[in-house]
């Protein structure tokens, strides 16, 4: 068993007096794709943001490669080779695709910029076509690709993705998940994925967690969870798949 890359243990997060996470334990090992699924308001995004230190966990601890990052400011966490693609993409709409990617490389020393650029363009050729277009004029799928590409520009070891499938056509979702798989297999990129699209996420992931009301209720292998009756009932029914 490889060593835990990201270890979240007993984390409790509050918004004011409202409890959002009631003691969450999640581990992500090197080279894994781990997904966290759950309904609206379960606390998935909160966990993601807590890992990134905004809001900070009130109790419990988060360690990354053995280093305690529970109380670290967000921008310092980002410098530890953790990249995050926040919910809602959050690209810079009035800057060009190229400038967006440059911002992604802001914390690197820039020596690998050209090769990194070519690498992400190889993954997302659409971005190359749109290099000088403003971020805000891209389609939703392209914006999501840009958000992931921008995160990759910081040469991360761990990529945190918050709902990359949000508002995208199924075909595009498939495409994006494919590229995540390739990144994981080729470059050994570790991915922690928060998703509502449980079917695709679990199919992709090595392991998965199910979150309900700020607590992890189930955990197991991706396919294993997918086969479970409770998971199917709660997150997959509706006849879409």
């Amino acid at each position, binding site marked *: 068993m490889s060593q835990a890359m990201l270890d979240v243990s007993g984390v409790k997060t509050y918004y004011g007096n409202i409890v959002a996470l009631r003691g969450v334990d999640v581990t992500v090992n090197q080279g894994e794709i781990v997904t966290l699924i759950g309904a609206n308001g379960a606390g998935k995004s909160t966990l993601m943001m807590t890992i990134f230190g905004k809001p900070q966990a009130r109790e419990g601890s988060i360690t990354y490669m053995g280093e305690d990052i529970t109380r670290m400011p967000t921008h310092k966490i980002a410098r530890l080779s953790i990249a995050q693609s926040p919910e809602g993409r959050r690209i810079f*709409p009035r*800057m060009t695709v190229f400038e967006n990617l440059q911002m992604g490389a802001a914390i690197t020393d820039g020596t690998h910029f050209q090769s990194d650029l070519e690498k992400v363009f190889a993954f997302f050729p659409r971005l190359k076509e749109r290099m000088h277009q403003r971020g805000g004029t891209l389609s939703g799928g392209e914006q999501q690709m840009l958000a992931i590409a921008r995160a990759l520009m910081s040469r991360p070891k761990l990529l945190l993705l918050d709902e990359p499938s949000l508002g995208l056509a199924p075909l595009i979702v498939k495409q994006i998940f494919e590229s995540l798989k390739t990144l994981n297999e080729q470059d050994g990129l570790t991915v922690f994925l928060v998703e509502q699209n449980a079917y695709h996420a679990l199919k992709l992931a090595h392991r998965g967690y199910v979150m309900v009301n700020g607590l992890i209720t189930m955990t197991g292998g991706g396919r294993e969870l997918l086969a479970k009756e409770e998971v199917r009932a709660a997150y997959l029914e509706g006849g879409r798949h």
Partner: protein
Amino acid sequence: MTATPAKPASAVAPPAPAHDLAHAFKDALFSALLALGLFGVIMGLKTEQEPTGLILEQHWERVLWAVGIVFVGRLVLNLTIWRRPGGKLDDLMPKGLQKYGGSTGTAIGVILIAVALTLPFLPGAERYHVDLGTLVLTYVMLGWGLNIVVGLAGLLDLGYVAFYAVGAYSYALLASYFDLGFWACLPLAFILACFWGIILGFPVLRLRGDYLAIVTLAFGEIIRVVLLNWSEFTGGPNGIGQIPRPSFFGLEFSRGDDGFAAYFGLEFSSMHRIIFLYYVILVLAFVTHLVSVRLRKLPIGRAWEAMREDEIACRSLGLSIVRTKLTAFAIGAGFGGLAGAFFATRQGFISPESFTFIESALILAIVVLGGMGSQLGVAIAAVVMIGGFEYFREFEQYRMLVFGMMMVLIMVWRPRGLVSSRAPSVYLKERKKVGADMVSQGHG
């Protein structure tokens, strides 16, 4: 039956269709009706104080005039400007400003710079014009300085005049207490204003938008009120007088034997100093421009722009928002301070009167009307606004009216300022511009 080839429809301009006219009439009639409702009571009836009490005077002829003007005006507009294909008010703007393609923009810029460089020696240029040019350039510089904060970093600052005041008072106080000269004080004014920018920056780190605006507004007032009330140090409402004038590499602009005129063998003229001051502010403005253009290409400038777009994304990319914000405030403030020091040395006298909120509003108006983040737009806006203010000086009473109308018109025509497109700061092969209106502000 032989088919005759149909004439191309575009060969003959079709006469205005009848329904167009009818529509125009209907529209004008409706507007007139609205005008009647609006003006009827307001203009038609007037209360007069009479010995017997209030009486009601009737002025229906005024209402008739107003309604008539609205009707005719609307009709004429409907039949002329608004009827044209794609007929928008946009068409009234000069084409050069509309497009602001690379070449047009550069051409305007070059012409403006050429005029600015030669202004004091142009035929017919008198002291008045040079003085006005100096004033305009001061505002151009202030506009560019504020542009860093508002246009690039996206932090709405309503108290920018505070830094202008800090710069002016820094020089005035250093000169009167320590006997320092203008050139020594210039960098000091810059540094002091930077510090004040940071002092303002700290409490507002977590604020955005309206809240930030309120705090900066208050900050501007605090500086002014402190200057006003700390009489023993700043002279209070009496201000500080006899601020030393700048020297030309140690040469004073005086009538004496060691003065500027005598040294160069020229006949003494009071114009020398005026022209010299003009060139000082021109150089200062250029420095502001060059620095902000260069800064935009540096990582810190890019970080400002990214922060304007999305703070959360910035954080997640490892940028420190604290540092980014503080540098924006500090550098923007620094240029305000430089302009302030210049203002003090030009006027020779400063008092808190000169640093009221209306100055902040004016500078902000220049930045917003010019197009946030655009250097050329800000310069044009400063020329138009400050020059316009002077031009309409004879119509003292109506000046603000014209000013207000101009603002409304520009916001109708060019909601994002005169020069609204933003060129990418960096580009690989070719430079492309995308109109800012194609992108919704602040949203993906």
